[in-house]
């Protein structure tokens, strides 16, 4: 044998096949990563591709005449052939505008106004149901450079609308922030206190074990049941206002609690017992030990768990639908008891709309949620690194 000729004392005939299977295994693991990455990339790519058009919105330049007639019937403000071209949302705003700026009365202006969603879809090359007549009007406008796609600042500054060209995520974003604020205010102190009690005070007996099992099970309950619970308890029993961030936040707090408890317990458990022993040995009381030495070490872990819990609550839709945060609510809430909607519920609503123009809004809404979640997770990592205590 070749190896024997070379007097290789390390020659082992079984090695080549063992190495081969190791390589094969490595290839499989790498393959799984590649498949996962491929799915992820495809998803992101498709989302971005679909959402991209929502960054732009069509505007047309038309002659607007502000007079008595148009303050009553706003359609009269523009030429008949443009009536299907400009947005009805903009037309509706004329009487209000005239009330605010009476000096406009009796003037005419050549100005850029928001276009109808069908026109917008035509401009973006998507499917549309415009008549041939309107198409030719648009083509004329095009050749005169009287129609163009502009940066869409409606999407981030307006609430929901039945007219896609006027619909945005702003009020649902505010609703989400209010709701998450309530969730955080309830779930964080309750969760951390519960975790501290279970880890630092409770003796290991039947009762604590039952509580533990139930907390873990709580995390596995389908979220829609929390919605039913919220409906039954907070709305029907306590009479809190329906569709409000208060009820939504309380409901999500129920869901976030087990996540915070479990992660806070893990963080507390990871604090070496020798630290507590040192504290007892010096005659410190339990609260002094927990406050001064245990919590500072556990803090980054608790924080990370809380942010992850909040991120999960941020994307939760089903329970909020049940408690009515899905209703058509174009205005943003001013307090936690006002009716509001949340970002994922807004996306859900848009996804069910028949108009083609909502497709890009839906995708853009998803991008907004993904961006927020991305920043929340980045914040979790950053804060953990920042407050981590090195041994």
């Amino acid at each position: 044998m070749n190896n024997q000729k070379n007097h290789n004392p390390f020659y082992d005939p079984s090695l080549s096949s063992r190495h081969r299977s190791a390589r094969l295994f490595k290839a499989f693991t790498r393959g799984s990563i590649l498949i996962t990455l491929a799915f992820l990339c495809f998803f992101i790519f498709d989302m971005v591709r679909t959402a991209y058009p929502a960054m732009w919105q069509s505007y047309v330049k038309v002659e607007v005449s502000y007079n008595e007639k148009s303050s009553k019937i706003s359609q009269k403000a523009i030429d008949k052939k443009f009536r299907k071209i400009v947005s009805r949302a903009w037309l509706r705003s004329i009487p209000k505008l005239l009330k605010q700026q009476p000096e406009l009365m009796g003037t005419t202006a050549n100005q850029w106004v928001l276009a109808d969603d069908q026109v917008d879809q035509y401009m973006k090359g998507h499917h549309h149901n415009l008549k041939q007549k309107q198409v030719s009007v648009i083509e004329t406008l095009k050749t005169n450079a009287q129609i163009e796609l502009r940066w869409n600042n409606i999407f981030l500054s307006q609430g929901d609308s039945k007219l896609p060209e006027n619909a945005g995520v702003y009020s649902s974003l505010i609703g989400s922030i209010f709701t998450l604020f309530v969730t955080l205010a309830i779930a964080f102190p309750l969760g951390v206190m519960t975790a501290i009690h279970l880890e630092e005070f409770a003796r290991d007996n039947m009762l604590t074990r039952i509580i533990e099992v139930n907390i873990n099970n709580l995390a596995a309950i389908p979220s829609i049941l929390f919605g039913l619970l919220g409906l039954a308890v907070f709305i029907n029993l306590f009479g809190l206002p329906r569709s409000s961030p208060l009820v939504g936040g309380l409901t999500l707090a129920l869901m976030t609690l087990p996540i915070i408890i479990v992660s806070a317990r893990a963080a507390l458990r990871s604090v070496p017992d020798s630290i507590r022993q040192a504290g007892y040995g010096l005659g410190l009381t339990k609260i002094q030990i927990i406050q001064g030495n245990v919590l500072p070490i556990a803090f980054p872990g608790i924080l990370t768990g809380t942010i992850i819990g909040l991120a999960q609550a941020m994307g939760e839709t089903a329970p909020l639908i049940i408690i009515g945060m899905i209703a058509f609510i174009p205005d943003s809430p001013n307090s936690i008891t006002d009716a509001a909607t949340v970002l994922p519920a807004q996306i859900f609503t848009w996804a069910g709309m028949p108009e083609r123009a909502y497709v890009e809004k839906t995708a853009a809404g998803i991008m907004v949620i993904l961006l927020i979640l991305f920043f929340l997770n980045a914040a979790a990592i950053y804060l953990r690194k920042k407050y981590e205590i090195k041994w």
Partner: protein
Amino acid sequence: MKSSGNNTLNPHRNSDIKITASGLNLWYGDNHALQDINMDIHKNKITALIGPSGCGKSTYLRCINRMNDLIDNTRITGEIVIDSKNIYDADIDVVAVRKRIGMVFQQPNPFPKSIYDNISYAPLKHRLIKKGIESDELVESSLISAGLWEEVKDKLKSPGTSLSGGQQQRLCIARAIAVKPDVILMDEPTSALDPISTEKIESLMMDLKKDYTIVIVTHNMQQAHRTADYAAYFHLGNMVEYNQTETLFNSPAEALTESYISGRFG
């Protein structure tokens, strides 16, 4: 095995006694870990507890500052009298006991704080000192007593965990003496350290016994021999023999002690 009645071995009754254990029994669940311990510990002396692994040395040490209270399922009978008060009396607050009886552990366990805060934290909480100049002075004097001042005086704000193992252990000793205890309990304080750090801690102990009563658990026979004034040999939950170190090592009364010291088992 000796019958429990004969375990009352109190050499030199006339000298100053700091701690007296009498009829001390401890059970971990069904495990009878300490069996009728009777022992007088002398003031301003170093007393070493030796014996094979699992014989109950640490358990006994933890009885002296009631650290065993923290373990579920333990039962203790008998008395430990310190300064003529039984620390297991109902009117005793364990926190006060542990403040007077400091402890140094096998593994150095500094708090996740700066060197300065490691030392000042407990005295501040006990309201022994105020923040500022008082605290600065206490930190300095404690570090000087623990022989660490010269090494750390320029980096008091850096974390306690940034020190070497031996320095950390001296930091823990400084932390213990900062609360001004009477007694310092040490459970194998040098077993995680190199010979040079060990020597530093040993000479530190010799310095400290002027002001403190020291009880140390050790597996290192030379260490017990070098440092301790008194030594007690434990075996399977019993205190087999207790005497002045020289006597215990050179002419042990019990066969068990002799075979352990001469290295036949343990």
